[in-house]
């Protein structure tokens, strides 16, 4: 793992182990809501899809599951790569959240009397106007 956005489930899975409590073994996705999960200072994680971010420069994280603490090393971001990553699990959660945002936005724009399609049309008109201005300027320079 490198610095970036992950789901809580992905972090627990990266520990690559099962979690044993009172003689019963639980897999990573089974502990949420049953046992305390704390990931590098973020407490109260109850859902596997909980997204959080490890800032660049973070090299080791501490994961608490129940009464046990685990250490997980983060790989340094490769040289020349400035961008921190967004995991596949995090992308799926973000995409689902995006659909909700779009529904909320549709309701908001409707109440303002500004349907989404209008903004696309106006953006095109803006681009057309700018293109006409550039062509007029070029014609003047060519004279």
């Amino acid at each position, binding site marked *: 793992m490198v610095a970036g*956005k992950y789901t809580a489930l992905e972090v627990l899975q990266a520990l690559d182990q099962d979690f044993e409590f009172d003689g019963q073994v639980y897999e990573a996705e089974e502990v949420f809501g049953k046992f305390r999960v704390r*990931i*590098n*200072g*973020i407490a109260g994680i109850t859902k596997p899809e*909980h*997204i*959080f*971010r*490890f*800032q*660049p*420069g*973070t090299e080791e*994280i501490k994961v608490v599951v129940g009464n046990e603490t685990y250490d997980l090393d983060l790989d340094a971001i490769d040289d020349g790569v*400035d*961008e*921190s990553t*967004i995991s596949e699990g*995090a*992308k799926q959660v*973000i*995409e689902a*959240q*995006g*659909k909700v*945002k*779009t529904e*909320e*936005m*549709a309701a*908001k*724009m409707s109440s*303002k009397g*500004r349907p*989404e399609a*209008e*903004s*696309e049309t*106006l*953006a095109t*008109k*803006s681009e057309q106007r*700018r293109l006409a201005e550039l062509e007029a300027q070029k014609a003047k320079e060519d004279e």
Partner: protein
Amino acid sequence: MATYTWVLQGSTPTTIESTDIVQLAGAGGFDDPVTVGEYNDTTHVESSVGANDSSGNTPNNNKFVSQSGGTGGDSTADWGDGTEDIDAITEAECALKINFSHGSAVAVTSHIFYAYDGSTTTSAPTGVTFVAAEQGDTNFTGAEGSGSALSIGDSASATSHDFYILISASPDSVGEKTAFTLRDELTYS
């Protein structure tokens, strides 16, 4: 001690001081108006006395194009390369970078970002449609008033936390929009 730093990113970053204005303007640049119903073509930092503090820094601009017109219903925007899905934007291409730092390593949670009227945090900015997204989001949030804020993901323990945000706005009517303030709230522990 906790420190907040807001920056308008560009070829050279421009620090946004507490008394500065983030000016969302038209294609003509600083102080150029935006047509009603259209979105900003340029973004600038204006000082409290009206100077262009981001002059020469080629500041980034994120222009809203559509909420769901992109691939698989993604939002689209133009940040200088033409219309693209917003989840293609890199950290460096976002207009706003907010850094929260602390002498001790702390986690950041309950982090929200929104615009309001400058008086009541629950009230939308006046006469403006404002959208925002965190880098990596697939869709914009109509982040007007604290009840509709952009929710920014938790950031695990560190002494320095960087957050990259796209912002875009469109006037609903003619006239300068001054009842329009950006606000960032978070909990650190």
